[in-house]
Structure formats: C-alpha cells, structure tokens
C-alpha cells in the first residue's frame, strides 16, 4: 500500500507538531507521509498547487480563511485532496458534519482516530463540494477560480460587481476581471450583506457605489445608472430594482 501524502493545516504550531507526532504513531496501521504544513488556508492552497496531496487534515478555526472555506476552494483542483476536519469545540460545525457524514477529528486527537480516518480516505471516501457548501455556515471571504492547475483567490472585499454572462459570471475588481462558474442567485444569497442586485444579471458591492446618474436613453431600460468607486463603467439599474437601490442610496 502506498503511503498517503498528508498536508497539515493549522494556525497553531504546537497543534501541527502534535498531528505530526500522531501521524508518525499510526504509520504502521495507516501508512502516511507528511508532505507539507501550512499555517492558514492561503498557504495551504499554495502548497496544493505545487505538491500532490491525498488528504488534508484541516483545523476549522483559522484566521483569514476558515478550514471549511479552504476545503471548498481546494475542490476546484483537478484532483482535490480528501479532507479531514479537526476541531476543539465547535458544536455547530460538529452537528453539521454529523448530519452530512463528513469526517472530523475532535481535539485532543487520538492516534487511533487518525488511523481510522486515514483508512477511510484510503478506501476512497471523499466529501463533495455540495456537502462542503452545506456545512459551511459562514459566507466565504474569497471567490475562487481555477487557473492552470492552481486555485486563484479573489478577496470579496475587492469585488466591485458581478455580472452574469451566458454560462459564466464576470467578477470585476479594480485591477482586472475574472470568469467564474457559479450562479448569481447563490452569490446573492450567500453575500446578501455585501451585494445589492441592480439588474437581472448584475450584483454590485454596496460599498463601491459612488452615486447614480441619469442615463439619457431612448431604450425601454433607460433610467438610472450606478457609478462605481475605482472604475469608470456605468451599470444600468433596471426599473424593477430601482426602488430598492434608491432606498439603499438614501441610508
């Protein structure tokens, strides 16, 4: 049996050291080799781009990006690693894991439990993207795009607007555009606090709205347009959305 290649992701160095020791302890039972350690989700994704990994042991609570969000982005890879979550005391997450049969380890972790989890992974048990979406109680902090075998992250704080175009969504930041595969309705629901819908095919980041301008037009959609902070484009507001958008602009 070829040893499983393991990535350990935890923001606390002693916790990573402990997992290493435990993986070492159960090597006889479940052959494994630690190919990398990461202190947060961003480092972890970088590592996945350069090193093939079979399973990632991921702490849930990490600064910057939660373990669950890390796992969701990692699913964009061509061969995503299996995920085993580690947590000390997150009752909510544990309940969600139980309901969705997601594998997790409770801290303090025991060697026998690590071995059991690794054996499950070796037997081919994987969480799917849909399940991860379901267990993630928090909105993500990044949108992700798969580009040339690695995961590109776009911080939601940088997004000016998202526009639906045929099969894809165009995500616009100050610097550039990204194409992602997702549904506008899902994004609207997940990030209700961040975006407002101004048109059937367009969500705008509330904090990037600079003002409104009357569009001189003779089409049926002629009316108002949103002016953006840090971008010259003007986005038309549909009649149907205007009342809501106007209410926001007053507050």
């Amino acid at each position, binding site marked *: 049996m070829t040893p499983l290649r393991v990535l350990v992701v935890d923001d*606390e*160095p*002693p*916790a990573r050291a*402990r997992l290493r020791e435990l993986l070492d302890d159960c090597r006889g039972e479940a052959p494994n080799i630690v190919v990398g350690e990461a202190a947060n989700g961003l480092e972890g994704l970088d590592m996945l781009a350069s090193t093939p990994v079979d399973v990632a042991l991921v702490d849930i609570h990490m*600064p910057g990006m939660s373990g669950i969000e890390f796992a969701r982005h990692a699913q964009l890879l061509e061969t995503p690693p299996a995920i085993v979550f580690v947590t*000390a005391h997150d009752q909510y997450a544990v309940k969600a894991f139980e309901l969705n049969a997601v594998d997790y380890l409770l801290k*303090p972790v025991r060697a026998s439990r690590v071995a059991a989890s690794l054996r499950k992974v070796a037997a081919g048990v994987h969480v799917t993207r849909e399940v991860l979406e379901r267990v993630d109680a928090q909105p993500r902090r990044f949108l992700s795009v798969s580009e040339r075998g690695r995961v590109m992250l776009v911080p939601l704080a940088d997004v000016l607007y998202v526009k639906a175009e045929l099969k894809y969504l165009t995500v616009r930041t100050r610097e550039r555009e990204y194409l992602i595969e997702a549904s506008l309705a899902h994004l609207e629901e997940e990030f209700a606090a961040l975006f407002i819908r101004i048109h059937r095919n367009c969500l705008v980041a509330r904090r990037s709205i600079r003002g409104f301008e009357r569009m001189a037009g003779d089409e049926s959609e002629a009316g108002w347009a949103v002016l953006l902070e840090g971008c010259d484009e003007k986005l038309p507001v549909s009649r149907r959305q205007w009342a809501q958008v106007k209410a926001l602009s007053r507050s």
Partner: protein
Amino acid sequence: MTEQKAASIRQNDRSDTLPDFTSLGVIARVLLVVNGAAVAAALANSQSWSEIGRRFFEIALWVEPALFAVLAALYATSPLLARLRYAAGITSALVIVAVLTFALSAVQSFLGREPGWWALLRGVAIAIALAAALLEYFRLRDRAFSPALAEARLQALQARIRPHFLFNSLNGVLAIIRSDPKRAEGALEDLADLFRSLLADNRQLIPLREEVSLCSQYLNLERMRLGDRLQIDWIIDSGVEDALVPPMLLQPLVENAVFHGIEPGLAAGSIEIRIRREADRLRIGLSNPYHPEHQHRQGNRMALANIRERLQLHFDVEARLDTAIDGERYRIDMVLPYRRAV
C-alpha cells in the same frame, strides 16, 4: 451594602438585616418613594390641575428638610445601626425619623410657617408610617435577593462559565509534552491552579491580586498555543491589588478578548488591561483588536450578561459595565465600588 451583602451571602442561617443607608440604591429608592408619596398627597388635596404644583410645593417645604436630615442622620449612624440586632435597629431608625421630623417641623412652626400641634403630630405620624413601610420593603427586597436566592443565582451563574480554555490548554499541553516536557509540566501546574479557582466557592469577593494572577496563568496557557500572536499589556496602579472584586470577574473577559480579538487575526494583536482607583471607585478597562467579520460567533454577549448580573448581585446599582467599539479596538469599561480586604 456590598460588604454586608457579601457577608450575608456567605452565611447560611438567614436573619434580616437593616438596609445599608450609605448605598446609593437605598438612598435613591427612599427619595423616590417619599417624593412619590408627596405627589400623591398633593394630588389628593387638589381640585384642579393647576393646583397640584402649588400643593406639592407646600408639602415639599415640610417634607424635604426632614427627608434630607433623616437620610443624613441614617448615613452617619449606619455603621452603628448595622451592629444592632434587627429589631433594635428598626426601632432606632424609626426613633431617628420621629425625632428629626418632629424637631424640624417644630422649628418651622416656630418660625410661623403653619401653626398647630395637630398638623405637627400628623406629619410625624405620616413620616413614621412611610419609614416603616420602606423598611419593610427593604427587608422583603433583601429576602428576595439574598442570601439563599442570591446564593443560588450566583452558583448558577458561576456554573454557566464553561471555559473553552480548559480544552485549549489540554490540547496545548498534549502538543508539547514530547518535545518540551518541562514546559508541559509548568503548564499542567498552571492548569491545576485554574481548575482549583473554577471549583472553589466562588461566591465571596476576593482580592484583585488573586484574580489578576489567575488571568496571568490563563494567558500563559494561551501563549503556549498562540505564541507571539498574543501580546498583553497590564497597566495596574500600585495599591489597587487589595481591592475586593467578584471572583472570575476578569478571566471570562480576557478569554473573550483572546477568542474574539487575537485568534481571528493573522497578525499579532495586543490585549490591554488597565486597572486604577478613582477616589472610592475601581475602574477596569480592557481592550482588544476588533474583527467585525468575526462578530457572529456567540459567547461574548453571554459572558457580558453573566458578569453584569453578578456585579448587580454584589454591588447593586453602584457597579456598571459598558462596551464600545472604538475604531479598530473593542473596549470594555467597568466601574465598581472600591472596597479593601481587611
């Protein structure tokens, strides 16, 4: 009231005690009830709306001097009264009320404000009746809050502090036990002390010194896990270490600060704890980095509500706890009466 209340919480046989006439809560309630009675009397004697104000003013001329004189006298004699048995204390307080009301009314009559022995005696009788009613109210209120009930509530509140740090610390110790057994040993010793404090009878006030050392031990354990990400600034005025505070007053706040202020940050963050004395008050300020996106995680409000309720049980209206978000930092400001261990 505080020491007395703390004392009464401790004892198990419940006997009635006089209210603490030096406490703000008692004084405020007396003022409120007596003036309320004056308004009611004015209302009863008035034939029209416009008359109420005038009537009240007339009554107030008689009532207020006596009221303030009685409050001042009770304030001054409070330590003596507290030493008497309850019945004797009540009698003494009523005598003070009767004598002062009579004396002040007599002086006013003598000055020609309103004649008549009848009015004078009626005033004294009303004063005594009001005072007796108030004393009974304070006795019942005291019963409602202490000792058995207050004790049960404190116990329940204490039990609700279920610190996650016990888990965190155990994980921390397990993580270093092979690589650094000496440090693990020290950490377990700290942990044992923390357990002892948690399991102790936590209903009596303790010197601030003990609470501070508990927090330091707790922070040592957290530093094992978080390393340099956790920075602490203690600013404690000299001489305040003897002040009496409810046990587990600071620890849950410091734990919250680590949980909400340090853990979610990628960079290092600092927790600042500032304790100083301001005349007869003890002021405790605590601040930590604020992460707005992290606020939905429950727990903070529960800990604050818990501490507020315990402060109220120990200090009534004389303590308060405020929170504020000040730019990038979350601040807690707490004021309690300064009492010293004897």
